[in-house]
């Protein structure tokens, strides 16, 4: 007779069988898969917004689009902010600084895809097409879809800089400027100025697929587009006919991993070779890992606190100087940047030419700060609002902690700071409209020209545009940076910027906090990979051993 109460039997057997089946499945599927030789996997931090470099502003998009697949007339030498000839072989600036003539490189091939086989090499028509598409409202390809704008072109005010682009011959073009603009060359090295193929867009239009031309990129860059699986992977193959020489790797894969911990885990297990944006907290462990190398580079950035100089009492230079003197920057660097930053004394980082090392920073001196505050008419201190960053940014790993440290420092001189923050987009919106009295901010440079820091952050026009958070418009400073932007020779420009930095320091519209160092962990088998100064990720020269 069967034992009715004995719970052996079918359910337990079923459970055991299920466990065995699961174990067997795991064994079957868990066999590792070796990467094909010549395939480099980069764990990126997000999906590109699209595949057209003219429309977007995110570094993530540029990394996936303009960097691997396109070229500019001039480009930044990887690892520096020096400009080198790319699709333009040489250039000549007119004596009055109001025109630049580019001699284009001959024999530059465009990529091809299932829809398009180029019949000609890159030439002046492509330069005109690329530029006029952004500049000319009546250009047939000017407005492809609602909500798509030529973001950088518009935001950098290119229409106020460039009068027109002329074709001199097939391999010569001239940019005629409305005013002398020395930084313009560096602007042309930026991603938004990536050169498109006129023939490709026209072919696609003739086929009735004009919109697809923006989704399926055709460029002249080192890698050709293969496929994109949304939010998962982007695949590229080396472009054999690349004018700069075929890349050493055959296949480049972007594996999109939004979570930094998961990116690190993938790097450790060899599922990717290079990872973007490590968490500062993981760096110590990464350095100990024999399979990894942690590359580092001084960032093209600055983290700062801006006083709203339109509001009392921050319109008083003495108050601004006093609050500068009361901040112990060394302690902030030690506690928040943990060795991955440098104290900032100028608005531009030391790796930029024209950095004025003679400028003397406000050394931490609470006694002098208190005296200055008394001189300004606040002997018993004052109450202030300090807005702190709600997010981690490349120039500031922990805004809240930084604000707390500054709050404690200021407390010592009788300044009581109330800490406030908002959601990130709201924070930017409110500070751009000047609601704040003291705001924590920062900047990462787009190009290697000092003007890219001075004008958008401290220029008088930027008060209205919102980039000038100090809302500080100083005539002497403005005259210097304007003149510098219109002066052709770099040495002359540097002298002007150096003077501007002296005024800036004395006027103290900001407390310059730090220039952060960027880190990139790569696996040891990766050779020839160099970190870029403008925080892009180039794999042209990378190889695997």
């Amino acid at each position, binding site marked *: *007779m069967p034992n*009715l*109460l004995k*719970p052996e*039997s*079918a*359910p*337990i057997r*079923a*459970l055991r069988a*299920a466990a065995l089946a699961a174990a067997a*499945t795991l064994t*079957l*599927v*868990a*066999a590792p*898969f*070796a*990467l*094909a030789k010549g*395939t480099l*996997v980069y764990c990126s931090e*997000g999906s590109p917004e*699209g595949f057209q470099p003219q429309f977007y*502003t995110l570094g993530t998009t540029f990394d996936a689009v303009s960097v691997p697949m396109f070229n500019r007339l001039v480009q930044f030498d990887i690892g520096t902010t020096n400009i080198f000839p790319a699709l333009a072989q040489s250039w000549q600036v007119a004596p009055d600084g109001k025109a630049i003539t580019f001699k284009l490189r001959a024999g530059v091939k465009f990529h091809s895809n299932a829809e398009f086989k180029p019949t000609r090499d890159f030439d002046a028509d492509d330069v005109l097409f690329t530029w006029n598409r952004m500049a000319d409202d009546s250009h047939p390809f000017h407005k492809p*879809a*609602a*909500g*798509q*704008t030529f*973001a950088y072109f*518009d*935001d950098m005010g290119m229409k106020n800089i460039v009068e027109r682009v002329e074709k001199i011959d097939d391999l010569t073009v001239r940019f005629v400027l409305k005013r002398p603009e020395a930084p313009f060359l560096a602007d042309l090295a930026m991603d938004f100025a990536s050169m498109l193929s006129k023939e490709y867009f026209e072919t696609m239009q003739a086929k009735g697929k004009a919109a697809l031309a923006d989704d399926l990129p055709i460029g002249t860059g080192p890698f050709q587009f293969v*496929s994109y699986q949304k*939010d*998962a*992977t982007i*695949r590229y193959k080396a472009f054999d006919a690349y004018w700069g020489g075929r890349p050493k790797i055959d296949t480049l894969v972007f*594996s*999109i991993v939004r*979570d930094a911990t*998961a990116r690190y*885990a*993938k790097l450790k*297990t060899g*599922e990717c070779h290079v990872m973007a944006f490590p968490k500062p907290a993981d760096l110590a462990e990464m350095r100990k890992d024999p399979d990894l190398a942690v590359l580092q580079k001084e960032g093209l950035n600055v983290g700062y606190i801006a006083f709203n100089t339109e509001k009392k009492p921050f319109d008083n230079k003495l108050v601004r100087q006093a609050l500068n003197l009361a901040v112990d920057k060394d302690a902030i660097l030690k506690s928040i940047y943990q060795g991955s930053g440098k104290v900032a004394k100028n608005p531009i980082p030391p790796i930029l030419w024209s950095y004025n090392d003679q400028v003397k920073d406000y050394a931490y001196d609470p006694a002098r700060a208190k005296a200055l505050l008394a001189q300004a008419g606040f002997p018993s201190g004052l109450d202030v609002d300090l807005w702190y960053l709600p997010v981690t940014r490349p120039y500031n790993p922990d805004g809240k902690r930084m604000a707390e440290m500054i709050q404690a420092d200021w407390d010592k001189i009788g300044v009581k700071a109330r800490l406030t923050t908002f*959601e990130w*987009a*709201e924070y*930017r*919106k409110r500070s751009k409209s000047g609601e704040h009295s003291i705001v924590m*901010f*920062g*900047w*990462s440079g787009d190009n290697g020209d000092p003007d890219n820091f001075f004008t*958008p952050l401290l220029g008088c026009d930027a008060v*209205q*545009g*919102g*980039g000038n958070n100090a809302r500080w418009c100083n005539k002497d400073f403005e005259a210097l940076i304007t003149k510098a932007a219109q002066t052709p020779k770099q040495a002359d420009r540097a002298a002007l910027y150096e003077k501007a930095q002296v005024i800036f320091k004395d006027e103290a519209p900001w407390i310059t906090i730090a220039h952060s160092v960027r880190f990139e962990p790569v696996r040891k088998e990766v050779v020839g990979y160099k970190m870029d100064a403008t925080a892009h990720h180039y794999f042209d020269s990378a190889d695997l051993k």
Partner: protein
Amino acid sequence: MLKFLLRRVALVVPTFIGVTLLAFALIHLIPGDPVENLSGERGMDPARRARLLHDYGLDRPLAVQYADYVGQVLRGDLGNSLTTHEPVGREFLTLFPATIELALFAMLFAVAIGLPAGIVAALNRNRFADYAVMGVSLTGYSMPIFWWALLLILFFSVHLGWTPVSGRIAVQFDVPVVTGFLLVDALRSGNFSDFGAFRSAASHLVLPAIALGTIPLAVIARMTRSSMLEVLREDYIRAARAKGLSHARVVLVHALRNALVPVVTVIGLQVGLLLSGAILTETIFSWPGIGNWLVHGVQSRDYPVVQGGILLVATVVIGVNLLVDLLYGVINPRIRHG
């Protein structure tokens, strides 16, 4: 049956109105707007800002925006993503198979382990096996998904090296997307020598399915246990045993079928839980599904993606719940006539 069906379907209409209103209100309540989100630290050209606000329809009163949105939805148009400019419906359909695949395997895992575990616990009431099953399931239920997922990655992927860390398939397999279900597409891709693509896709499913399936597993195990305990006390079970039927037959045929009624309901309800859990699981495992997509949509204030995504997910959940209601009626005829 038809009356029952109509009554259920009628209830769906107000639910839909509520969902569109809620999705619209919630995303607009979050501070920050999509245009500001595009600008970064740099100021934005005022003309470009004005054009974008106009293009996105954000320069109109909220009530007008809502009315337009509802009108658009009724015409079957969910709008275009503000980030990618692709139609929301198309993006959803591209990514949804990945979420279904994950949810399906998570559910399979939950049912395959949860059901027998619940039965074993019921049959061993107040004994070690019962305490063990209930203890483990309570732990599973209480564990935050993101933490559990990270633990799984650290142990199985980084420490033991058994499973891949994240993604849907190893990067060396470029499987053409046909159905969107990678296991199916991998088989279709024709690599039959070692089933490499299929094995890779399967291995990538293991950890996310476990992470996502853990809470439903706990719920199913607990529900099966209590339901079984109730049924096992019934007179007809005693009668079956008295008739001399085998233990297995009594448990699996006589008791389980009736015990399953509430369990099926619970399994249906887990679909909502699976889809909400997918948001965290997909983010951690870089699973290119709708959870990952929605999180990014919220971060970038991509209103059409968030509104459309929530609406479509709600449609799926409502649809499944309706199906469960109907199924419930099939399993238990008394419901139909209630």
